[in-house]
């Protein structure tokens, strides 16, 4: 049999390309699904914590409004905290434009501002801890000192540009 080698190579390439195209379309679906699962979880984790600080601050602001107090150290902390949280992205900033935002630094600032607010209010830092403070501790006179060792340090901040460095290794096609 005679082979035109050139043609055979072309035929191989055609088959390969056909398969590649189908595979790519299938892989795309898997990439989106797996990425989405990771993004949902990470977005939840980050914004659950930020939302806590935000809701805590907003509620104490409403309490101060109710008391008719406008100028206070606590109010100052609340304003700073709300400013910082407003800077935090609700979408992954790497998606649109390269960002100068230092996410871990912003997170640190938000956490320490929340702690400062709690100290000023004379309230224990409860994020990431047992929700119901024992009455003995919460009935103390303000300001109650903080427990710096226990404040949410276990949470690791994730870098937005690199959601899943290990995703490539876990694939099982």
């Amino acid at each position: 049999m005679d082979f035109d080698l050139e043609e055979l190579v072309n035929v191989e390439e055609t088959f390969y390309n056909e398969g590649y195209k189908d595979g790519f379309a299938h892989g795309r679906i898997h990439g989106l699904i797996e990425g989405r699962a990771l993004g949902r979880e990470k977005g939840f984790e980050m914004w659950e914590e930020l939302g806590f600080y935000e809701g805590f601050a907003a509620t104490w602001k409403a309490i101060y409004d109710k008391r008719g107090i406008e100028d206070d150290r606590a109010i100052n902390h609340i304003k700073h905290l709300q400013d910082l949280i407003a800077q935090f992205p609700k979408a992954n900033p790497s998606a649109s434009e390269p960002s100068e935002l230092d996410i871990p630094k912003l997170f640190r600032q938000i956490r320490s501002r929340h702690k400062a607010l709690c100290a000023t209010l004379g309230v224990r830092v409860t994020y990431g801890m047992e929700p119901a403070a024992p009455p003995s501790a919460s009935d103390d006179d303000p300001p109650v000192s903080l427990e710096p060792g226990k404040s949410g340090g276990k949470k690791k901040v994730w870098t937005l540009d690199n959601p899943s460095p290990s995703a490539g290794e876990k694939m099982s096609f």
Partner: protein
Amino acid sequence: MDTSESPWEDDSPWGDNPKSIQDSEWSKISSDFQNAGYREGITAGKESHLQQGFDEGFAQTGAPLGREIGLLRGAASAILSLLTSKNPLPGLTSDSNRDALVQEARYINSELSEIRFSDVVPPDLEAIAHAREHLEAANEDDRSMDIELGEEVESKRKMESLEDAMAKMGAGSITAEVKKGRPKPDDVVRLRGRLTQLSEKLGVPLGLL
């Protein structure tokens, strides 16, 4: 039973044709190359879309859902800390009234703290639909791949049920909570309602919620 087609397949007129051997050889080569392309393609397709999926999941589901729960927890925590502080709002003078409010605030805080991502995350419909396709295809297609959809959530759920089991063993004081099962999205609505009521009693509007 439908028998109209099977006899034709059984004694196919091409069954003894030697050309079919060539054909099968040829189709083996073609499918080898197609499969090689498929494998490369699936990896490239996946890797090039992980980020897009991540961004979608983060912005469309994870962040808003997490913020919703976080806001409730933060507000509930603030209300509880107000009620248990030395100088709550004027008007809250009756001790028995205050005790009831503290109890309600504790209940809401503790219920909210039970809620986890896996309890409230909506199902990924595309992932479910695709997993179904895999199951159907698995019967007829050798190319079928491992289904790893929602694996992250699933493994997390397993881990958390382990945590639940450990909590049951460790703490006898929370046995009342144990028999209810996991919280559901409805519980978020219910707890938001109770928190709103409580804060209205105190005259503190929860604007964000």
